[in-house]
């Protein structure tokens, strides 16, 4: 049985792969086809995952239709850009949030390092 985190990732992958909104039933069928792990996935599990994703602001539910249809709020690329922005960002407390291997590098420093690398 896959963990909730893995399921969230699979559901998002499905929603990102098509622009259309999908119902929990459709998502379960698509997951069953694509994934090895989720053969006997219950619709309620998919709904749980979807409501978690909704709380996190990753999917939205279309109002007024039944059964509810869900869609991804923005593209995978947008989310990746935001993630990288947080990781590379220069907010003063960013360092306390996550510790990066290399901080910001000025162009002058980078030039010196390039010379060092080609020489070595």
């Amino acid at each position, binding site marked *: 049985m896959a963990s909730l*985190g893995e399921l*969230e*990732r699979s559901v*998002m992958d499905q929603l990102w792969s098509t622009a259309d909104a999908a119902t929990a039933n459709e998502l379960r069928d698509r997951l069953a086809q694509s994934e090895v792990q989720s053969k006997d996935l219950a619709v309620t599990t998919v709904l749980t995952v979807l409501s978690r*994703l909704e709380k*996190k602001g*990753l999917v939205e539910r279309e109002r007024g239709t039944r059964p509810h249809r869900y869609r991804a709020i923005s593209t*995978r690329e*947008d*989310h*990746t*850009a*935001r*993630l*990288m*922005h*947080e*990781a*590379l*960002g*220069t*907010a*003063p*407390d*960013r*360092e*306390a*949030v*996550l*510790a*990066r*291997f*290399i*901080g*910001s*590098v*000025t*162009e002058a*420093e*980078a030039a*010196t*390092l*390039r010379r*060092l*690398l080609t020489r*070595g």
Partner: protein
Amino acid sequence: MLAASYLLALLAILLAWPVPVALSRAQWTSRSPFAAMVLWQSIALAGGLSMIGAMLVYGLQPLGDNLLQAIGRAASLVLENKASDELQFWHLFALCAAALLGTHLVFTLGLTYARITSQRRRHRELLEVLSLPSGAIERTLVINHPAPVAYCLPGGSRSVTVLSDGLVEALSSGELAAVVEHERAHLTQRHHLLLWAFEAWRQALPWLPTSRLSREAVSSLVEMLADDVARRTAPDEVLVRAIALVAVGSAGSAPDPAEASLGSSRTPGTAGPSDDGEASVAARLSRLLTPQPQLTAAQTTAVLAVSGLMLAVPTALLLAPGLVT
């Protein structure tokens, strides 16, 4: 008790300005980052203690010969709602200032913690759907992005190291291992707690330039400490190459201002190592390329003794003011 409050005030001034300035310029810190780290913590703690202590002792001094006795009498005055002609305006002023500053420091610490953890949680939520566990390395996630990036996200048992595709491709397996080792060291040595405390200190006292100085020194020292852990398993030149490759690769890939609208505020033109308090890459590299001998055991002991003394003096002045009168 009056003399004790003056001594505490003098100590507070020394620890707020000349001492941190001198330490931030000292060259020996890169030779023993651990001892330097202990010294910075002791300066910050002793500084806060003497700052608040000076005002407290001054304000309570008419009420008793030592702090405990004075606090007891002050409490009974307040509880019995009695007027006191012993306490003049300046005494009350100092007591209020001590209470305000103390509360302010504690609140800022809590607020900073809440903000940091909520940012981490949000980041982790995004990571959960955007990254894949690395097949080769334990407790490591890989995100799909060409820029070479490595970082760790602390969170108790859920702490993870995050690498980008770009990084995995750019580095050899030895270099990659050194990077992962460096990030793990941040987690196991709990560097995020130090960065949190000094970040809170900076936010609580933004008008005190040395609060920023100390935070910058601390973030530089934790990088050196993590480098030293990585050096135990990887040869220096491998670590040097990893640092240089990642630095060169990330030089052009810092988020541009257009992207900044997505996230929190970032004003253009404020980027750069000197402004956001990052450890200068150059300092880390020069330390690895031309290794200096570590401080001798005696020197390290001396630094640690000074750190201990720095904490002991204000504590003694607070609890036993009779010593100086």
